[in-house]
């Protein structure tokens, strides 16, 4: 599903990832841990091809990074759900519209969209915030909104960047359980996290990033 083949990316000012080899199979649930600044976000950005590797090659869901054209990116991303570390909710529309957006991109019919979004917001405990704009949500609510938006389209791959950073332990745990549920249903998950307590002993593969490289 996700293959990184000797991938390097260095930012102009330094930092980034070097010589990363990684294989994630379909329906795997992988945690990525590593100290702050180690390159987790950079790894995820490479996988959803926000940045393209300077060295090496990435294959995600049959899309290859080498020779990737901007025109093909939407096709790739429509199959991927992204939970961004900094949320990236659209502040010009309310929670409902934010979560509905990926379905509009995929051209879902209106009635189905309403149904799916309502169900999803319910699942994440946000039903009473449908009309809130992002700045009218608490930190944890924004984070859950971002998760809801990533999951609404039932993606083949879910990439989650620190999705529990602003959640209390109980809510974090619930989130992991939701992830495990969709993972059982077939979604490949790669989740970056600092919260080792949360993820340890759940039987999922854990990869460790340090200084831009994978340690096994």
């Amino acid at each position, binding site marked *: 599903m996700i293959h990184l083949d000797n991938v390097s990316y260095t930012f102009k000012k330094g930092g980034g990832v070097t010589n990363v080899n990684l294989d994630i199979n379909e329906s795997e649930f992988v945690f990525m841990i590593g100290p702050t600044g180690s390159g987790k976000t950079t790894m995820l950005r490479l996988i959803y091809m926000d940045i393209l590797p300077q060295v090496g090659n990435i294959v995600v869901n049959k899309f290859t990074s080498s020779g990737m054209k901007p025109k093909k*990116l*939407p096709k790739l991303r429509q199959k991927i759900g992204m939970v961004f570390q900094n949320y990236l909710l*659209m502040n010009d529309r309310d929670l409902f519209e934010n979560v509905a957006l990926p379905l509009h*991109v995929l051209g879902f019919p209106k009635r189905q969209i309403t149904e799916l979004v309502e169900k999803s917001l319910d699942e994440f405990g946000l039903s009473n915030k449908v009309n809130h704009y992002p700045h009218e949500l608490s930190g944890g609510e924004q984070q859950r909104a971002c998760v809801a938006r990533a999951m609404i389209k039932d993606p083949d791959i879910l990439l989650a960047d620190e999705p529990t950073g602003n959640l209390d332990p109980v809510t974090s745990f619930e989130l992991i359980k939701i992830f495990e549920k969709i993972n059982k249903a077939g979604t490949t998950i790669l989740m970056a996290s600092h919260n080792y307590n949360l993820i340890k002993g759940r039987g999922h593969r854990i990869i460790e990033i340090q200084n831009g490289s994978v340690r096994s």
Partner: protein
Amino acid sequence: MDKFSFLIAEGFKNIFRHKLTSSATIFSIFLTLSIVGFLILANQNTNKIIEYLRAKYKIEVFFKEGFTDDELNNAINQIGSIKGVRSTTLISKKDAEKIFKSQFGEDIFDLVGFNPLPASCVVNVEKDGIEKLEIMPIIKRLEMLPVVDEIKYQSGLISRIESYYERFSQIAILCFILSLAISIFVISNTIRLTIFSRKNLIVSFQLIGATRSFVRFPFIVEGLFHGFFGSMLSAIALYFLIDYGNTVIDDIISFKINFDPYLLSATLIFIGIMISTIGSIRATSKYIK
């Protein structure tokens, strides 16, 4: 189908989601197209000036002695049909007498005992039309008539009038082109800024898998609307300005600004929509990878 109607709806919603930027765009379209419209009208009305000046210009044709009134009238008709001639006025020997009296304060009959003054004819040139008036062909045609003795005209004057007019209308057209160019720049500039303030949104859209056209479409709808609304406002404003202006000016100097409100609106709306839509597309492209 659902996608299409969503995108149209998005475009409309964005107008209200981004009230400040929308109003700024509409406002700048309104302002600049008001100037453009104003200058379109000014251009259409510059010919009033040449009309005024041409109306003051005349050619005097003196007739030879010994022709009958019929023959003179005949000649006058011929003169009247020359291209570029607006009207002719026969000044008979009798009229010439009166003119002499008014000009020199004496009666020529008293002075000389008979009337030595020739009959003549005042030829007024065409005053309408914006093409440059050529005086020499008229003179040539006049000289060919057998009744004509002498022709008096100020070849310098008419060409000076015409060149003044030409300069004037050149300046007016220059102003118009300049203002159109400036409108395009100002409007694009405004649009660039409004879209700049939404660049993060555009990036976010693309990160969740929206295609370029999906991102761009609502901006086009918005641009269309802004263009339509802004130019509509400028057409309305000009209409009332000129309507009011006309009643005021008419009182003072009996002059009315010619204008066709439908044509003016159509022109402005066309220009407005074009600039705004193209501006939106171009400005969006910058942030769409």
